[in-house]
């Protein structure tokens, strides 16, 4: 059985026909062609699929599109302002926080939520808060550095 699911994605109002079982990540990638959000595991472990739903980071492989009906969704494609990268994206670039880049969209979305929810951050907290995101390349060190570097920039800009 299909029915229409509507939501706001990166500021735009969108709708698409979905089955009950259609996942939010399928909605984004297959219906909207927003392929920046990745599927790494499809078993809720790796965090490559993290997006924001009403300002909160979620694993879009473990959320039905129907559950996001009417929600405000932001994906990695919604962060940059034209050619100007979001401060978190810029910090990842400057700190060499990616190698193959597969985990990066989810890492960046989790990292932004983490900064939004923490007035202060230290290395230990960042590592604990990154438990939902796996990276097979970097060893995490530069990702942690990037998040710590982006924190004051994001807080200062707010």
């Amino acid at each position: 059985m299909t029915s229409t699911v509507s939501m706001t994605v990166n500021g735009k109002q969108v709708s698409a026909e979905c089955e009950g079982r259609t996942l939010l990540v399928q909605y984004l990638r297959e219906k909207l062609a927003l392929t920046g959000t990745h599927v790494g595991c499809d078993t809720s472990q790796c965090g490559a699929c993290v997006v924001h739903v009403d300002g909160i980071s979620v694993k879009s492989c473990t959320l039905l599109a129907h559950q996001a009906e009417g929600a405000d969704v932001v994906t990695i494609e919604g962060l940059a302002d034209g050619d100007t990268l979001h401060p978190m994206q810029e910090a990842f670039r400057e700190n060499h926080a990616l190698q193959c880049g597969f985990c990066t969209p989810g890492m960046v979305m989790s990292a932004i939520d983490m900064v939004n929810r923490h007035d202060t951050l230290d290395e230990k907290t960042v590592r604990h808060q990154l438990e939902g995101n796996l990276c097979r390349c970097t060893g995490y060190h530069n990702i942690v550095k990037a998040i710590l570097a982006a924190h004051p920039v994001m807080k200062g800009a707010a």
Partner: protein
Amino acid sequence: MYDFNYRKASSVGDAVSAVTGAEDGRFLAGGMTIIPTIKQRLAKPSDLVDLAGIDGLAGISVSGGVVEIGGMARHAEVNASAAVADAIPALAQLAGGIGDPQVRNRGTIGGSIANNDPAADYPAAVVGLGATVHTNRREIAGDAFFTGMFETALEDGELVTKVSFPVPSKAAYMKFPNPASRYAIVGVFVAATAGGPRVAVTGAGPCVFRVAEMEQALGGSFAPEAVADIKIGDGDLNSDIHASAEYRAHLVTVMAKRAVARANG
């Protein structure tokens, strides 16, 4: 994943009639267990009835020495609640140690206890604090709620509306997490309650259980030394690639000791 009908319920009554009226209806809370289960084809419900739109199911309140947590309260909300952290810090801390931030942003207490995974954290708090589970039909004592591996006292169409935790004089939860999933290989919740000390163990066996010998010893002296030499038998414990039954039995004593030390601050 097989297809199913999705429905968003507007009230508890609506959710219950949608589930009982369907061929094989199930409630959908955070989806952090049921969606992976359906993906693995371990469940094939005909209908998922979403509880997220029901008013009043997600509240958290503290009054009269009782912490009440709505069935739809997310782990992240319990973890971040200043009122919970003030009344039962061990409960806020337990919620903050479940899975990872994205799991905590979606997963709920109602879903967690209804599912009763042998390695889940909340069952240890429900039993360890002598909580009461409230449903659309009745109140169920925490001690009677968890009946076996993935089994609870809930009947078909029975919905967890809230859980009430009496505030103990002190409590702590220590878990030895699986490094990949963060589920408990062994988790021990200890509390000094009005009815005496309680020790509840999750992760070690097929279902959460209390350790009477430790509770008795803590009644004499609420100190880590009191439980340090109490070993539990490994006959009924879980054994898997993560830990043998013998190792789990050992961890129960270690985690109990640490939990008592932590409860004493």
